[in-house]
């Protein structure tokens, strides 16, 4: 994959997150190069989703630093909404807007917030929908689509903002097994196109095939990280070994 510049594209330093007295992230460090695909695995409650959410500031951070493309996101000087337009996010439950057609789901923010001409945003929406294999669904409503189709719409919707990095939070966990592949294929294409991606998933084959780096988290810390094949086949920590023994890696 691509080799980034010397300074990391995204740098998470000593990220700490607490809910009351419960600390869910206990000082996480993670550097991401431009174009790198970082796959994050770990048991539920390990803090991997919280970590992902800190990057687009949906999750307030108790302490730590997040530097994206050289800008300190937590300096208080950043416009949160502008940052989020650069950081695309896709959720487990798609979060499509049920009152809007697929096309309008994609064009809502470009038209209403970025004030793009309708023709321009619709053209880009159609292009992205074609890319995820849903060119014929522009006029459908989300509830007329399968879960896999909805998730592909959600990916296209996030791409409408021309994000510099994409976050995927267990995007195949709510899908029937036969629908998982169509979503993973879209993500593979995206990775090949050079998109920087942080992917929280339970799909070990995806981690192995597409990931540049695999991060294993448990109890709010990064236990182990490295090349996916190394971590999956030769884990160096007991905690990792224990977790992987319960998966079909």
């Amino acid at each position, binding site marked *: 994959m691509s080799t980034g510049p010397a300074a990391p594209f995204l740098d998470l330093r000593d990220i700490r997150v607490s809910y009351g007295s419960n600390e869910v992230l206990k000082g996480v460090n993670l550097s991401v190069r431009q174009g790198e695909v970082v796959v994050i695995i770990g048991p539920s409650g390990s803090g991997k989703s919280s970590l992902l959410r800190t990057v687009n500031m*949906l999750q307030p951070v108790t302490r730590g630093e997040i530097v994206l493309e050289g800008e300190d996101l937590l300096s208080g000087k950043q416009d949160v909404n502008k940052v*989020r337009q650069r950081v*695309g*996010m896709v959720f487990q*439950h798609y979060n*499509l807007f049920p009152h809007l057609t697929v096309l309008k789901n994609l064009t809502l923010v470009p038209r209403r917030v970025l004030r793009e001409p309708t023709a321009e945003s619709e053209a880009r929406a159609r292009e992205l929908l074609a890319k995820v294999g849903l060119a014929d669904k522009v006029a459908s409503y989300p509830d007329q689509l399968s879960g896999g189709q909805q998730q592909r719409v959600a990916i296209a919707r996030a791409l409408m903002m021309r994000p510099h990095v994409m976050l995927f939070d267990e995007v195949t966990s709510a899908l029937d097994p036969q629908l998982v592949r169509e979503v993973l294929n879209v993500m593979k294409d995206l990775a090949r196109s050079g998109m920087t991606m942080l992917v929280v998933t339970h799909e070990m084959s995806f981690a192995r095939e597409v990931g540049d780096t695999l991060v294993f988290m448990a109890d709010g810390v990064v236990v182990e990280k490295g090349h996916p094949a190394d971590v999956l086949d030769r884990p160096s920590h007991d905690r990792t070994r224990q977790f992987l023994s319960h998966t079909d890696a």
Partner: protein
Amino acid sequence: MNDWIWPVAAYLGQGLLVTLWISLLTVLLATVLGLLIAALSRSTLSLARLIGRLYVEVFRGVPSLMILLFVFFALPQIGLRTGPLTAAIIGLGLWGGANIGEVFRGALNSIPYRQEQGARALGLSATEALVFVILPQAFRRALPPYVGQLTVLVQASALTSVVGVSDLLGSARQMIERLAYVGAGGSHAIEIYLGVLSIFFVISYSLTALASLIERRLRV
């Protein structure tokens, strides 16, 4: 001999206009109050939420007729004097506002947090998320119970005859009494009440039909 029909119908027509007028103003007042209460319920200030909560609990906890009588007969004793029509509108509006406020609040709360989260993740501000994502969905969900409350308010307008408003029901009662007194072949209570009943039914049914039409159009 049916020569009593036309004078009675003309008089009831006047009453119907009063009923429609009361209903319209009551609905407007109750809707404005309802929106205010729903907004209070989502306020970040706990005092604002408490005020909204208290209002709803108090006005939903007492009979509408009681509020009406209180506004018309009790408030004048502390100097707040109103005519019967105004008292009727204020009393029913205050009562309806609590119920409609609950409808709006329930509709807003029924929109899952994921929707807001999805909108915010795309870079919408909290206000933009509310305007473009939450409210359009809440509106669709609120519509059926909201229209239900409107029909309740139209029907409750019949209570205003108690404080001396010559609404549809009030006019009907006056006519029945007069017919019984002049002895024009009896009071004709059956015919007149059936007529009044039909009119209320037609108004309510039209509202419900209109609502289901809008529902279909909006894909609720």
